[in-house]
């Protein structure tokens, strides 16, 4: 059964996943081309200085990339399910409704995780080549909320898309957007050190939020 679920989700998402991951890797590559360029033109020590003491965010072009990927993956995965209320087909399958939703969600989460992991490790790996641990650590702390935002966007878009009533869909969207701002406060490198763990917990907590709108659907709120 799990294989079938994965098969369907893969049919829906494969091209987007591949292309978006590729775009993500391009974004990472682009950052390090710029870093390379800056080091060549500014001297490495002056460039380090800019990062350490002048708040130079060499990674800032990465800010909305994971968000964009999470958002799009959620859309391509869940919009086909609500067209013609196809989600009914899912609920008719001989499997517990929550279980299959969690499988779909799990698929999305794991593929997103894989996509982000590629980007993240490419980024950290390249960072480690030219930058010291202190900078890399502060940078990881800064980009962590952006990747978390990607997951949060994925979970919340699933919630919004699966809600069948437009009025509520808009209300969820507004509430979700206000919440998403938490991940994008501007701050100095390392500024998210204290809140990252809390954001991780919140992101995990909202992972099951689509079961709310799915339940509403099953109880006739359409």
């Amino acid at each position: 059964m799990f294989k079938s679920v994965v098969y369907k989700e893969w049919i829906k998402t494969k091209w987007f996943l591949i292309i978006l991951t590729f775009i993500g890797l391009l974004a990472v590559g682009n950052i390090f081309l710029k870093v390379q360029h800056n080091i060549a033109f500014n001297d490495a020590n002056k460039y380090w200085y800019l990062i350490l003491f002048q708040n130079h965010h060499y990674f800032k072009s990465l800010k909305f990339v994971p968000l964009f990927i999470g958002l799009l993956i959620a859309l391509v995965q869940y919009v086909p399910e609500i067209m013609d209320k196809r989600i009914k087909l899912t609920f008719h399958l001989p499997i517990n409704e929550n279980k299959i939703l969690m499988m779909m969600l799990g698929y999305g989460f794991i593929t997103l995780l894989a996509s982000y992991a590629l980007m993240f490790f490419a980024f950290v790996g390249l960072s480690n080549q030219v930058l010291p641990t202190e900078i890399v650590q502060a940078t990881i702390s800064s980009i962590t909320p952006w990747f978390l935002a990607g997951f949060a966007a994925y979970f919340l878009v699933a919630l919004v898309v699966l809600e069948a009533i437009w009025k509520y869909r808009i209300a969820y969207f507004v509430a979700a957007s206000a919440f998403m701002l938490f991940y994008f406060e501007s701050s100095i490198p390392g500024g998210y050190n204290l809140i990252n763990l809390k954001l991780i917990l919140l992101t995990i907590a909202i992972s099951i939020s689509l079961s709310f709108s799915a339940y509403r659907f099953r109880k006739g709120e359409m």
Partner: protein
Amino acid sequence: MKKISRYILVFIAILATSVALPKLYWLAFEKPISRPFIMYSSLEHDFMIQRHENKQFHRTDTKGNTYTRDEFEQKLPLFYVRQLLISGIMPDTINGRAMDTHEIGKARSSYRFKSSYMIAPTPGLYPLFESESGRANLEMPEDFFRITDRMEFVRASENIISEKKSQMFTTVLNNRGFDFPAAMIAGIPTTRKSCDEGYIVVDNSNQMFHIKMVEAEPYVAKVEVPDGLTFKFIACVDFSDKKYYSYLISSDNEVYILTQDEYELIKLPIEGFIPEKEELRIYGNLFNYTVISRGTSSLKVIALDKEYNKVDEYTESWTKLSDTKAGKAASFIFPVELNLSNLNSSFIDFYFERTKGFNWLILNLLLMIAHFFIIRKTGLKPTKNLIDFAVIAVTGIFGFLAVNIFQNKFFD
């Protein structure tokens, strides 16, 4: 699971609205609160106060005399020295001392401390300048140091450790009894300063060291710190008079200076300063220091003489934001305000600020009644929504919005 997911969503919505709604509210209704500018006049031996009210400046002293702008500036000749020179009214002598612009400039200092400088992530990696390079300008070194289980220099061009240099510094530090790793490293990591005095470093057992590099060799001096005295913040300064290396804030919120060469720690007579919440400014001139500690609704100004003795003191407070019209109205709406950033910290975090008093309980009650009718209208049973009522009772408008966005429908 659907119940849990609903409460999680309600919780998220409460968080989001308790950030967004107050933010929008203040954007719409906040009025600027003017804070006085106060400086000690070495001429009058009194504090000169400039207030900005109703788009006009009012300049007085503590006795109530009012001054024009020119008069005010003339009372503070050492602060407005450039203006007085341009106007040609700089006095030749002050307090019997002949005025020399070079001397005035050399004695001038200004320092500003903000809580967010102290409550901030540390870079962990610092440039150690050559203090006696024989060059007019300081140059950015090729490497940066960290003090972990030893003092390590990392060369930026290759991103590798300079072993020889690291060993040399580590050895000297070990010989001086340095206990690795460093707990605090304070310096001025910029080439834009008059000269380099290296770093003041606190080690793992609260010993204080002065570390610099002189002609490529380590210079390490241990600073004698009285027993039990520990510091939460050290700010190195680069003032022309070369009297001290740094301002230090001790764990018991006293402000010290560390003198140059003798490494003497002198406590400044500043009482009641709360570094976690207040801003501190220290202005020095030929005769005095003006020390201003400022909180959200009050400030305290202390005048010191050049031997750091208190000569005068002045306090003033003004209307708190929460006591303004908009603030009072807000206290009827929001039980709490949530912020992700805080003036007193460089960290992003959840900063809850509880509204003083319980005015908001009225609205909470009204919203509970409103919610009762909403539930009745949708044909649900109020008894099955007790948790929602409790949420509204506690979180008021935020909870009311949250439970109605993520409606409790059909849950049996």
